[in-house]
C-alpha cells in the first residue's frame, strides 16, 4: 500500500496537469458542440474522460518491465481483435471499425497502435544495433507493422492506417536503422503508390484530390474544408465566444464534436485558443522528450517514449492540418479533445506508460 502511495507521490504531476488540461479543453468544446441539443454526448464524454484519467493513473503504476515482457502477447491479442473486427465488426459510415462489447463500442485499431509501438520497441531492444547493418533481420519488424496496417486499411480507416505506418517509420528511424534502408523503402513506396492509389475507395481519392483545390467542388468534398476554414478564419484573434460560433452551431461545420472540433475551437476562441492548444500539445511533447532522452542504453524505453509521443503529436497536428487545409481529410480525431472513447482511452493509456517511464527515469 505504502508502495503505491510512494509511486503516486513520484508521478510527474505537471505532466498529469497538462494532460488533464487538454482533456478539459475537450470537455469545454464538447459542451459547446452539443449545446442546445441533447446532453447525452456531453455526459458520456465526462464519463470517458474520468475513466480515462483513472486508467492513466493505473497504468502509470505498472512498471515498464511488464509491457516489455508481454509485448508480443498484447500484439497477438491486438491482431486477433483486428481480425475479429474485420469479419464481425459493426458497420459505421461504410467501414467496419467497431466491436460492440456489452453495449460499449470499441475500436481495436486505436489500442493496436500502443501494442505495435511496444512490440517494435521490444524487437529493436533485443536485436541490438550490431545487427542493424544486416537488412535481412528487418523482415520481421516490417511484418509486425504491415499486418495491422493492412488490416486497418481494409476496414477502411485510411487515417489510422497512415498514422500506424508513419509512427512505425519514426520508430525505425529513432532505433538507428541505416539511412540506406529508408532510401530503399522510399523507392519501393514510389513504385507501390500507384498500385495502392488504385486500391483506394473513390471517396478517399476524392478527398485527397480536393485538398489541392477545395473551391473546385464547393458542395462536394471541398465543402467541408471550405466551411472549416471559414469557421477558423472568422474566429479572428479572440473568437466569437464560447457556444457562439455560427459556423458550428448552424451546422455549416460537419462533425463538429469529432474530427472538426479544432475548427470549432478556432471559431469560438480565435487565434489565442488555437495557439494555446498547440502550446499545450508542444509542452506535453517536450516533457516527454525530456523524459525519454534521459534513458541511455535503454532502447526499449526510448522507443516506447518516442513512439507514443510521436503518435500523439502527429495525430494532433495532422488533425489540425486537415481542418485548416494543409492535409486531406482522412478522418482522424484530435487526441483528448474530440469525442470518441477508444481513441481517448488509448491516449490516456499511452500517457500512463510515459508516466511510468518517468517514474523509472533518473533525470533531474
Amino acid at each position, binding site marked *: 500500500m505504502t508502495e503505491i502511495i510512494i509511486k503516486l507521490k513520484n508521478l510527474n504531476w505537471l505532466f498529469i496537469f497538462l494532460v488533464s488540461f487538454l482533456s478539459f479543453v475537450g470537455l469545454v468544446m464538447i459542451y459547446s458542440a452539443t449545446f442546445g441539443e441533447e446532453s447525452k454526448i456531453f455526459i458520456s464524454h465526462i464519463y470517458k474522460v474520468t475513466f480515462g484519467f483513472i486508467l492513466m493513473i493505473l497504468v502509470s503504476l505498472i512498471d515498464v518491465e511488464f509491457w516489455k515482457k508481454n509485448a508480443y502477447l498484447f500484439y497477438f491479442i491486438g491482431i486477433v481483435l483486428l481480425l475479429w473486427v474485420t469479419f464481425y465488426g459493426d458497420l459505421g459510415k461504410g467501414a467496419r471499425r467497431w466491436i460492440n462489447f456489452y453495449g460499449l463500442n470499441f475500436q481495436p485499431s486505436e489500442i493496436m497502435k500502443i501494442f505495435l509501438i511496444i512490440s517494435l520497441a521490444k524487437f529493436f531492444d533485443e536485436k541490438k*544495433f*550490431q545487427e542493424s547493418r544486416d537488412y535481412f533481420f528487418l523482415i520481421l519488424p516490417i511484418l509486425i507493422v504491415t499486418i495491422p496496417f493492412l488490416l486497418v486499411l481494409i476496414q477502411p480507416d485510411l487515417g489510422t492506417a497512415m498514422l500506424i505506418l508513419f509512427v512505425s517509420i*519514426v520508430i525505425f*528511424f*529513432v*532505433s*538507428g536503422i541505416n539511412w540506406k534502408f529508408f532510401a530503399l523503402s522510399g523507392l519501393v513506396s514510389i513504385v507501390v503508390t500507384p498500385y495502392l492509389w488504385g486500391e483506394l475507395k473513390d471517396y478517399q481519392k476524392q478527398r485527397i484530390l480536393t485538398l489541392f483545390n477545395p473551391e473546385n467542388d464547393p458542395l462536394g468534398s471541398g465543402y467541408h474544408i471550405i*466551411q472549416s*476554414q*471559414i*469557421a*477558423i*478564419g*472568422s*474566429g*479572428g*484573434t479572440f473568437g466569437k465566444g464560447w457556444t457562439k460560433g*455560427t*459556423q458550428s*452551431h*448552424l*451546422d*455549416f461545420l460537419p462533425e463538429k464534436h469529432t474530427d472538426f472540433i479544432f475548427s470549432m475551437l*478556432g*471559431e469560438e476562441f*480565435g*487565434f489565442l485558443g*488555437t*495557439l494555446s492548444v*498547440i502550446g499545450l500539445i*508542444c509542452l506535453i*511533447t517536450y516533457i516527454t*522528450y525530456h523524459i*525519454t*532522452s534521459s534513458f*541511455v*542504453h535503454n532502447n526499449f524505453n*526510448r522507443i516506447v517514449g*518516442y513512439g507514443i509521443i*510521436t503518435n500523439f*503529436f*502527429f495525430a494532433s*497536428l495532422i488533425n*489540425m*492540418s486537415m481542418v*485548416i*487545409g*494543409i492535409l486531406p481529410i482522412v478522418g482522424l480525431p484530435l487526441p483528448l479533445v474530440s469525442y470518441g472513447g477508444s481513441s481517448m482511452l488509448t491516449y490516456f493509456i499511452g500517457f500512463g506508460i510515459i508516466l511510468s517511464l518517468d517514474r523509472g527515469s533518473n533525470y533531474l
Partner: protein
Amino acid sequence: MIDLAIDSEVIMSREVNFEKKIKRRALILGLSKTFFTFLVFGKLFYLQILQKSKYGKLSDTNRIKLKIVYPERGIIFDLYDKPIASNRIDYQLSIFKDKKNLVYDYVKKLRGHINFSEMDLELIKNNFNEQDLSDFITIKRNLSWNELEFFEFMKNKFPFLIITKEKVRNYENDLIFSHVLGYVGFKKNVTKKKLSNLKVGIAGVEKKLDSKLLGKDGWIKFETDSKGAVKKELNKKYAVPGGNIKTNLISEIQNKASEEMRGIRGAVVMINCQNGGVNCLYSSPAFNNNEFSDGVSLKKWNKLLADEFNPLLNRCIAGLYSPGSTYKLVTALHAIENQKFNKNKKFLCSGHVSFGNRKFHCWKKEGHGYVNLHEAIEKSCDCYFYNLAKTVKIDDLAKFSNLFSYGQRTGIDIPNELKGIMPDRKWKIKNRNEKWQKGETLNTVIGQGFMLSTPLQITLMTARIATGKKIIPTIITNKKEFENLNIRNENLEFIKSSMFSVVNSSTGTAFNSKLPGNYKMAGKTGTSQVRRISLEEREDGVIKNEELNYKLRDHSIFTCFAPFDKPKYSLSVIAEHMGSGSKVAAPIAKRIMELALNKY
C-alpha cells in the same frame, strides 16, 4: 585478454557512436516536429489574423440571408371613402438562392399537391435569371389554404423552401373599376435590379399615381443554418407602405353603370359639374384587373387582344365615336354666339336638303315641317342644321368646338387619352390630301363625317354648356375655380332650355327618359352612324337598324345634365350598335342620373 579488451573497447566506442546517432535522430525528429508546428501555426496565423475579414464575411454570407420586403401599395378610395383598391395577404413559396438548382426537383416532388401552372414555371425561369438582391427566389405565388397546409406538413422534406407572405394588390370589385384604376404588374425594363420583383402601376390611376402609391421597400435579415432553416430574424428595415389616394369615383354609380351596361358595349361617363370630379368612368366590356395584377399568362393576354369587342380598350377616354346629334348643341351655340344667327328663324324640313348635286337626309324621312332652332334641337332635326351649315365656316366651327374639348385632350389625370378628330380645312389637306368640300360641313354640323370624339369629350361638352365654365375632368384632385368660357349667358340659357325640352317636352326625342320627381334633367340624344347609307338604299327605303348586321348598326348616344336649375352632374352614355340615342342610351342615363341625384 588484450583482444577482449580491444573488443570491448570497440564495442564501447560503437555504443557511444550509437548513442550519438540516436540522439542525432531524436533531434531530427524534434526539429521536424517543430517545423510541422510552425507550418500549422503559420496557416492559422494566415487564416485567423491576416484573412480574418474575408472569412468573417464568408461566415456571415453563410448564415445571413436577406429578404427584400416589398412595400404595401397605397389604398385607393372612392369619393365616400370606400376602398376600391386595397391589398390582400399572398402566401408565397420561396427557395434559397444558393439552392436554386434544386428547384425543378422540388417542383417535381410537390406537383400533385401544389399546383404549378405554366405561368408559375415561367415565373421561376424569369426569377432565376434576375439578379435580385434578395437571397430568396419566389417560385410560387397565390398559395391556397390547402397548399399551405400541405406544405406545413411536409416542410421537413424541403429544407431550402420557405413560406413568405406579401401584401399584394386586390381590387374589391375586379370588373367594375378595371379601366379607370388600371392594374399592377412587373416592370418591363428594370433599372434597379434590386427590386426586380416590385410591381408597379401599368395603367389607369395605378400608373398615373404610381410614385405615390408605391411606398418604400424594406428588408429582413434572417439567420439560417446550413439546411436553410430559418433560425431567427436578425434585424429588419420595415417597408414603408405607399400613400393612400382618394378619388372622385363613386362606387355605387360605377356599379350601377356596370349593371346597366351588362351585355352592351360602350361607355358611361359622369362628371361633377361643380368641381370637374369624374364620378363614373365605366367602359364595357371590362376585364378582370385582379387577374392582371396576379400576372396574366401570354395565352390569356393574346386572347384578350384578339377579342373583337376589345375589352382592354378604355372606351371612355380612348373609344372614338361620331358624336352625332349631340354635337348639334355646339353648332347651334356657335351660330347664335358667333354668327348672330337668329334663333327664331324657321326652316322647312321636308325630310332632306339638296346641296350641290347631293341630297342630305333628315333622320325623319317624312320631315319635321317648319321648325325654329329650339325645336330643331328638341326634335333633333337634321335639315335645320344642314340649312344652318350653309353659312358656317368649318375653321370657325372647329375653333369654337375646341372650347368644348373636341379635337383636344381633356387633360383627365389618367394616361392614354385620345383627342379624337375635329376636322377643319387644314386637317383635311394634311390627312386626306384634299381640299375641304362644303358638303362636308353639312355632315360635320350634325356630328357625322370625319368627326370623332370620346365619350369623355361629349360629357365634358355638356358640363361646360351647363356651367359656362371650362371644367376640367379629374379623377384624383379637384378644382373649385374654372375659367369662364366667355359665352353670353342668354345663348347658353337658350341651348340649355332646348336641352330641357329634349327630355321634358312631349315632342322631345328623350321624353320617355324624363326624370320622375322633383329633379329636372336636360339632355341631347345622338345616333352615331357607323355606315354610310347609299342612294339606292334611300330609294328602296332605309333598312331598319334592327335588320342590319350587328356591326353596322348605329351607336346610341345620350348626354345630359341635372338638376336643370343648378347643374350638378353631367352624364353621357354610349351604347354601341344599339340604334338611336333615345331608345337605349337615354333610359340608361336616366336611371343612373336618378340614382346619383337621389343618393348623392
